């Protein structure tokens, strides 16, 4: 397959994803926007107004980047896990598998879909956040890099989950029992500097902490962890997950016999 044909195939997958995301916007875009708005209202405005500033920032200012990142993480993950699982379940994954598209292009298509949904949801949540807080951008490059890398990472993670999922339970167990706790404990609502030293060290084992902090640094210029460490963690996990996905596709896990 020539480079131009591969590009056309990639654009086709992207278009299909985009059409799907907007066709079922009430499932893909609206819920995270509504949920995050409630966080802004309850935690940011009602409770946050009674809390002391964190790192010189009002509480709502402090949590906005983390809440945007939470919606990006969840949306990217859920897009690939559900999309891949349903394609596998309905067997329309075969449409791609019988085509000359190489495995890496199929992977890129699914991951790009997850990234797109993450970015779309993140954009709408960002718009909503402007009703509650003034946001300045401290470093646009760090901000964009953190968003893109995190959404790629969680799209890959969703794809791994989708490959292994054997039923509808399989696509909800990891988000419910792994992703959600890690996200909530990932420094969205607090700075780990407020913790005793032991719990600070425990918190550093949570990879989501680094993503939230990288993103927060891009917006506010504050982070619990040096930014280069945040990006090192992001790059490391992305490489590991890419290798796993490539291996699973090479083996045809869950889709080929």
């Amino acid at each position: 397959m020539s480079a131009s044909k591969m590009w056309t195939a990639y654009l086709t997958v992207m278009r299909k994803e985009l059409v799907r995301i907007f066709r079922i916007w009430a499932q893909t875009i609206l819920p995270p926007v509504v949920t995050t708005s409630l966080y802004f209202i309850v935690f940011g405005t009602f409770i946050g107004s009674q809390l002391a500033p964190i790192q010189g920032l009002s509480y709502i200012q402090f949590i906005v980047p983390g809440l945007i990142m939470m919606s990006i993480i969840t949306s990217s993950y859920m897009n690939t896990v559900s999309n891949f699982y349903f394609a596998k379940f309905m067997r329309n994954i075969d449409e791609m598998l019988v085509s000359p598209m190489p495995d890496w292009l199929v992977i890129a298509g699914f991951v790009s879909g997850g990234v797109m949904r993450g970015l779309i949801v993140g954009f709408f949540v960002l718009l909503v956040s402007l009703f509650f807080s003034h946001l300045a951008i401290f470093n646009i490059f760090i901000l964009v890099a953190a968003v893109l890398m995190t959404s790629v990472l969680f799209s890959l993670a969703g794809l791994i989950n989708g490959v292994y999922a054997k039923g509808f339970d399989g696509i909800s167990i990891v988000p419910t029992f792994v992703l959600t706790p890690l996200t909530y404990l990932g420094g969205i609502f607090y700075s780990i500097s407020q913790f005793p030293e032991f719990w600070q060290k425990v918190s550093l084992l949570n990879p989501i902490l680094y993503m939230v902090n990288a993103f927060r640094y891009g917006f506010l210029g504050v982070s619990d962890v040096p930014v280069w460490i945040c990006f090192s963690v992001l790059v490391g996990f992305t490489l590991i997950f890419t290798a796993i996905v490539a291996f699973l596709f090479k083996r045809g896990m869950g889709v080929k016999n």
Partner: protein
Amino acid sequence: MASAVSVSNLKKTYDTGVEALKGITLQVEEGDFFALLGPNGAGKTTLIGILTGLVYKTGGEAEIFGHDTQTDASRAKTYIGLVPQEFNFNIFEKVEDIVVTQAGYYGIPRAQAIKDAEPILKDLGLWEKRREPAQKLSGGMKRRLMIARALIHKPKLLILDEPTAGVDVELRRHMWTFLRKMNAEGTTIILTTHYLEEAEQLCRTVAVINKGEILINETMQNLLERYGEKKLEDIYINLIEGENGQTI
């Protein structure tokens, strides 16, 4: 003439231990209309799966127009259009989108694919339904949509895995006419079907597979002549009964 499909000592054993193909060898010549017959579980779908890249072989060789289906899979796949047994399109997508998106996977730009889709959808009686979600189509229309999707990239080899299963007589005859036209225009066709009359009417070459082995592989004319006045159905039943040592 070149071989559209060349299979040599092809083996497939599934992880469960089931030996689906026990070293089969066959050729499908370019331009042929080839019937691949056999009872359920004989290995037909496994063979098709290997040719289309959905199943990994465990031994032997399989080539499409000279390109190995595993080591040169991308090139081999460009030649194939597959109509699988089960409906496997996204029922929430519109008819035209399903066909045009499939073209995109083969690197055909959208504008071109929309143009290419028009005559195919018209030929298959789906043009009026092109803006409808696939879930609103009747069973026969869904079958035709599967064919339209398989043809959008103008494959040289069309593989049809029981394309007329559950289709009424009138529509089946319409599909026969369509497939004959495709074959006359140069498309090599491999057809698996349980309607033996269909194979007899359409195909020039026939292979019967049972328990992962090829029982016969010859031209339809030779086969029918060899068995005198018998119909393909009688020959097939004798063959399978003889092989299985039981009455079907």
